[in-house]
């Protein structure tokens, strides 16, 4: 049994999506069609609207204009149980991991199982009691990221890289149809960042899942993405494969070519499968 679903992701359609906060415009006229299985990197300067776009996709916020459709449904009217069902279909991975720090590693992975519980199991889970099948699924996910031996450890005793892998195990346990990344490697060092990105890409391509992720380093986008969306002042100014990211394109997205030393990640010098299996 594979912990991740083998059903491919839905098509994600953004139609002239705009979002403003008061007088401040965060997004405007964003139109894109994201095909199932694409690995999409969103790049741009701070304040370009990358996170706003992601939060619209996870339906943490509602666009002020335009529409977002996923598979057959429109995200705007979702509320209550339908909104929770949407969130269950979308797995999010965060810069700060957003794991419950005082809970054990396994309990954090089991959080991913919560939307799959039915009947009395939903109430048993309030006391953190899960039946054997869900527990086993969570342990498999943990094994998949190489952290099975840490199952009972308190999550805040793990390093940043390990916590992000726990977050990936939780994501697997959730069995999402789509993965969103909000700067998933921005607070990790190069080795751990590459390990997390390798794991994400491996999972996504094995299960045919779409990944849409903001990435602060152009190098990460070049290495991992199939497609890059460049945002500037809330608008898409670049949409294409990463090999199209030449100096002119970077100037359009960032206003200047990002400092070479800052972006000189030795990603290409890392050993190929960077995922440790300790």
């Amino acid at each position: 049994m594979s912990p991740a679903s083998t059903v491919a992701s839905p098509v994600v359609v953004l139609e002239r999506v705009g979002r403003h906060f008061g007088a401040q415009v965060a997004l405007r006229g964003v139109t894109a069609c994201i095909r199932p299985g694409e690995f999409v990197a969103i790049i741009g300067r701070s304040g370009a609207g990358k996170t706003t776009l992601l939060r619209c996709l996870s339906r943490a916020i509602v666009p002020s204009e335009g529409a977002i459709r996923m598979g057959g449904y429109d995200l705007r009217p979702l509320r209550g149980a339908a909104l929770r069902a949407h969130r269950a279909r979308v797995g999010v991975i965060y810069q700060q991991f957003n794991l419950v720090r005082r809970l054990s590693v396994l309990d954090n992975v089991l959080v991913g199982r919560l939307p799959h519980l039915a009947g009395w199991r939903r109430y048993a889970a309030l006391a953190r009691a899960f039946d054997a099948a869900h527990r086993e699924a969570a342990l498999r996910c943990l094994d998949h990221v190489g952290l099975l031996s840490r199952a009972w450890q308190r999550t805040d005793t793990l390093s940043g890289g390990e916590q992000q892998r726990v977050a990936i195990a939780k994501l697997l346990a959730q069995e999402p149809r789509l993965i969103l990344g909000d700067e998933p490697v921005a607070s990790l060092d190069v080795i751990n960042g590459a390990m997390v990105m390798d794991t994400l890409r491996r999972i996504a391509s094995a299960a045919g899942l779409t990944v849409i992720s903001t990435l602060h380093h152009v190098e990460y986008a070049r290495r991992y993405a199939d497609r890059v969306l460049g945002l500037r002042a809330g608008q898409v100014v670049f949409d294409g494969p990463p090999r199209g990211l030449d100096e002119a394109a970077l100037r359009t997205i960032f206003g200047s070519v990002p400092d070479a030393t800052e972006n000189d990640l030795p990603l290409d010098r890392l050993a190929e499968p960077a995922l440790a299996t300790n």
Partner: protein
Amino acid sequence: MTSPVAGILSHGPSPKAPPRRSALGRTLLTAAALAAVMGLAGRVIELRPLELVRDVGNIGVFVKGYLHPSFAHLDEYAWQCVVTVCIALWGTLVAFVISVPLGLLGARNLSPHPVVYFAARRAMDVLRAVNEFVFALMFVTAVGLGPFAGMLALGIHTGGVLGKLLSETIENIDPGQVEGVAAVGADRLHVIAFGVVPQVLPNFLSYVLLRFESDIRSAAVIGMVGGGGIGFYLWDTIRSFKDGEAATVVLLIVAMVMCTDVISSRIRRAAI
């Protein structure tokens, strides 16, 4: 040898920071205002320190009466101390049960609606504002004299205090950890059980134990208004000038408070 940053430290005209009122002036002003308030308050409470010095002999007479505790009714008083501890135990349990819903609804980041938030906050304000002795007087009329009335009074008042502490603890939690649970599509109760409770529990348990210590002290005197426990005997022996008996009661209360404080603070340290 010159410092490598000597250029920065000595170059150009001396910098002019924006003007600021003198610190000495502000301190003096604050001290004068405080002194004025305390002076007026002293007039109101008829502060007469000289009389305290002049009549110090009377205190000697008073203390002498207490130097010979009587142990004639020790078993009765000891039993009443047990009753007092039981009042505090149940009072804290009732307070805990009251405080959890009030605290959850009265936390800004968790409350389902601003009206509910407002109502829960004001309800807790009322419970806290009315002293446990006032509640005891009410419950004595409702359920009659005795420990049951005292327990209810303590529980209701402390419920407001713990509810307020709980709601403020909840408002200070890390929202990222809650978002991590809500983002998987978990429902409200699961978000609370996984995202909120683990963050809040150690602090809240510590508050409950602190309030239990405080409830022991309150339960020790709530008998004065008919709420049961050792307080009635304290009041009775002092009012009838049975100094030896009163001394015994005071000693027992001190011993009881010290013991429960030690035990409770041990548990508190183990819980965190």
